């Protein structure tokens, strides 16, 4: 047995010892509570119901049905002749058939109102990687990206951790349904300047996480104008684009560019993924679509660090190039999400809770500010703990999304069965009744 010698502590990198990975935030404490006591209809009916996870579980049957009916997607052909080519394929351009299928899928989601060139699609292992990669390309360490609040908590890690880039928030509030305004963008830009930070771009999520709402065309125009005037980039994370309840309500930045004849499009980059729309987060399918040739080339080279498994590219190329399947999927998925959304909104209304009017996503943005002792973050977290420990629902407090107004919570509804959602709504109802009585 080796004798233990005195171990001088050896330095790791600054990145390694920083906390920018974000996992020490209270947001993750909710995960812990769920992991330790997860709800199960039969075996643990009083456990914590997970409503903090933006997953789409409502349309798996459609995928399974496709697989059962299309064996060519599941194998590499009779006797597996395509296997070796596929197993060897590590070209960072990605399978052309897959890029073609993704371009078509993105077009279908936008009702054909925008065209996508498969050769501008760069593949990454998830939108997580896509957002980080774009940040490496568009900004230097110490520079800043402007991001409207409230925003996806993962951005703190994805945009900042290894890149050394900072986020300067564009504050939005309920007075206008949390829409971005030119004034708010200017204020954020000035704030960055006052901190001596060079702003390199603005990153929006459309439809928004956590708001569950699409960005209006007029606002998109203002954002694009702002980016043009400041000569900065515009990244539009459209990961929830297929989860809009009605096709016509989602306007992609691609459509705005189309109307403008693609003037100034070289500053625009779109991020997409199949993790939400297709409910396949495990498959790690992310894409970057850039109108800037140099960004496409560089992103493609960088994607070497985070390619999509060729096995998965092959499967999805088959699946998504089947027009009948993809059209039906998009339509049916929309209908089911709308149904779920209506169910939760009505259920919350009956309990006396209002939500932001939403039209997309896998969650709703719930307003519990009337319940706060004081309009502070501390009060919000106290209320959150009560909901976690007493009502036994893991929902996400607005502060974890950097919301400047306390009292808002993101509540996911697509990652459970309808029965579980009923149970959750029942618990909320009971909770609100008890509060009214006290």
């Amino acid at each position, binding site marked *: 047995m080796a004798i233990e010698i005195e171990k001088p502590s050896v330095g790791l990198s600054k990145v390694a010892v920083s906390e920018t990975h974000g996992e020490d935030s209270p947001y993750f404490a909710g995960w812990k509570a769920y992991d330790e006591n997860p709800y199960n209809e039969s075996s643990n009916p009083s456990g914590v119901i997970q409503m903090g996870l933006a997953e789409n579980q409502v349309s798996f049957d459609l995928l399974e049905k496709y697989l059962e009916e299309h064996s060519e997607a599941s194998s590499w052909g009779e006797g597996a002749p395509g296997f070796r080519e596929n197993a060897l394929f590590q070209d960072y351009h990605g399978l052309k058939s897959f890029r073609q299928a993704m371009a078509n899928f993105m077009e279908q989601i936008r009702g054909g109102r925008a065209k996508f060139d498969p050769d501008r699609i760069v593949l990454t292992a998830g939108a997580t990687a896509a957002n980080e990669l774009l940040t490496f390309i568009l*900004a230097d360490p110490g520079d800043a990206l402007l991001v409207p609040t409230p925003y996806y908590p993962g951005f703190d890690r994805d945009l900042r951790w290894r890149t050394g880039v900072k986020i300067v928030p564009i504050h939005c509030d309920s007075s206008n349904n949390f829409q971005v305004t030119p004034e708010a963008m200017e204020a954020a830009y000035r704030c960055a300047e006052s901190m001596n930070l060079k702003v390199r771009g603005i990153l929006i999520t459309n439809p928004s996480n956590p708001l569950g709402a699409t960005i209006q065309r007029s606002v998109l125009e203002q954002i694009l104008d702002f980016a043009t005037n400041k000569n900065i980039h515009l990244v539009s994370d459209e990961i929830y684009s297929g989860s809009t309840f009605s096709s016509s309500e989602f306007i992609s930045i691609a459509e705005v560019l189309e109307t403008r004849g693609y003037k100034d499009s070289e500053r625009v980059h779109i991020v997409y993924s199949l993790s939400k729309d297709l409910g396949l987060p495990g498959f790690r399918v992310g894409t970057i679509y850039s109108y800037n040739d140099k960004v496409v080339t560089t992103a493609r080279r960088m994607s070497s660090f985070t390619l999509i498994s060729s096995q998965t590219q092959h499967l999805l190329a088959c699946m998504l190039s089947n027009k009948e399947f993809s059209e039906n999927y998009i339509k049916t998925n929309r209908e089911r999400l709308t149904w779920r959304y209506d169910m939760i909104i009505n259920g919350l209304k009956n309990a006396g809770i209002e939500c932001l009017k939403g039209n997309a996503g896998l969650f709703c943005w719930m307003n519990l500010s009337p319940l706060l002792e004081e309009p502070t973050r501390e009060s919000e977290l106290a209320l959150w703990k009560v909901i976690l420990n007493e009502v036994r629902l893991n929902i996400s407090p607005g502060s974890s999304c950097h919301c400047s107004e306390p009292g808002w919570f993101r509540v996911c509804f697509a990652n459970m069965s309808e029965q579980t959602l009923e149970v959750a709504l029942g618990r909320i109802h009971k909770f609100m009744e008890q509060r009214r009585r006290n």
Partner: protein
Amino acid sequence: MEFTRNNNRQLLSKIATNDRHGENTPYFEGWKAYDSNPFHPTQNPQGVIQMGLAENQLCFDLIEKWLLENPDASICTAEGVDRFRDIAIFQDYHGLKEFRQGIAKLMGRVGGNRVKFDPNRIVMSGGATGANETVMFCLADPGDAFLVPSPYYAAFSRDLRWRTGLEIVPVDCKSSNNFRITRTALEEAYEKAQRSNINVKGVIIANPSNPLGTVLDKETMRSLVSFVNDKSIHLVCDEIYAATVFGSPRFISIAEIIQDMDCNRDLIHIVYSLSKDMGLPGFRVGIIYSFNDDVMNCARKMSSFGLVSSQTQFLLAAMLNDEEFVGNFLRESSKRLAKRHHVFTKGLERVGISTLKSNAGLFFWMDMRPLLKEQTVQAEIELWRVIINKVKLNVSPGSSFQCSEPGWFRVCFANMDDETVQVALERIREFMHQGKEEDGVSEKSKHWRKQNLRLSFSSSRLYNESLMSPHMISPHSPIPQSPLVRART
């Protein structure tokens, strides 16, 4: 101010506009020559044979057989679809337990069952490419450096430096002692760095070596461990070619070395992958195995940027936990690599070309120093152009691996079928005989110098998947072939 194309360079980051992606080196001429004129036994028998790609194509039949016998390993077949939704949703960065167990078992087996690897220490990454980069992010800050014994894998320049901002300090190894890594060379490189105020954070080695194809001996490995202990710096061992070893000496994992040594285990980190040992580069299976808890935890969080597709994890879990299959695969693979290696090296020997004695990797290290007009990189590149242009073989010049001695070439042998092997050998034979017809080595050199050394291609071929065949695959060609649509402004 307008966002014109002129301003483009300033509007992207420094990382985006520097050359550390590595694609602007002359090295890529070889790729271009191959891509524009790829060998095919019937369709293009005069084309360039790809010998610059370290792929293992010798054992696909074994895997294909296993796949057909195990349809439930795929979540998309009738037999496996009941697992589809659980796997499709699974994005936990710990990875599927069965996958980690399979990898740990494989690593143990490949190391001769002398070490047990803990499945809970297995961390995923986007291929070994992603693994090496992630480890660097964990261990060093921008501006810090890692010592890298040369000759080394060409893409380390990109993987270790590009986004991390690190520097590489090469540790020169020489043919006079078969390119062994000596303590002296390490110390020299370290001191040189110190004098230039470069902060060295560690050493990274590849064992088995790319491009040498040799395994490290125990003594060298112990010397490395004691070196890093003395300096309190890290040791990263890229063991990606571990199972490509045939014959002796056997592969020794760094994990085995530290079992019998007093050392600070927090300094030791292993990178592994299935891209070479199992021939599955498309599946992007990179593994980080660190003995340092903080590094393991950090790398695991970072793996969010490059997780292995859960569909692929599931398939490989089934395959790697089939111990009979794995045992048979490793044995057969070794055998076939040995045979291929033997055919080539003996064939070369017969025409007077010597190679570094090796028993691992998917390539051998060929000594063409006698054929250089002078011992310079320039002469090496000239000779290389002749080999590509006249002999029509895409081999890799030693300078692309930062070899300090000109005249060495890496030649890959496991990415082609037996017929192509014979064609390649025949071309080499012819080439050497031509040379022998004139007097002596220097005549040979003069003969080539008179040739038109400019590369010339037939019409360029656009990348087209439908033309791919086992003979013509160039999936890793870094040449951007897809024509980009110009943005309309």
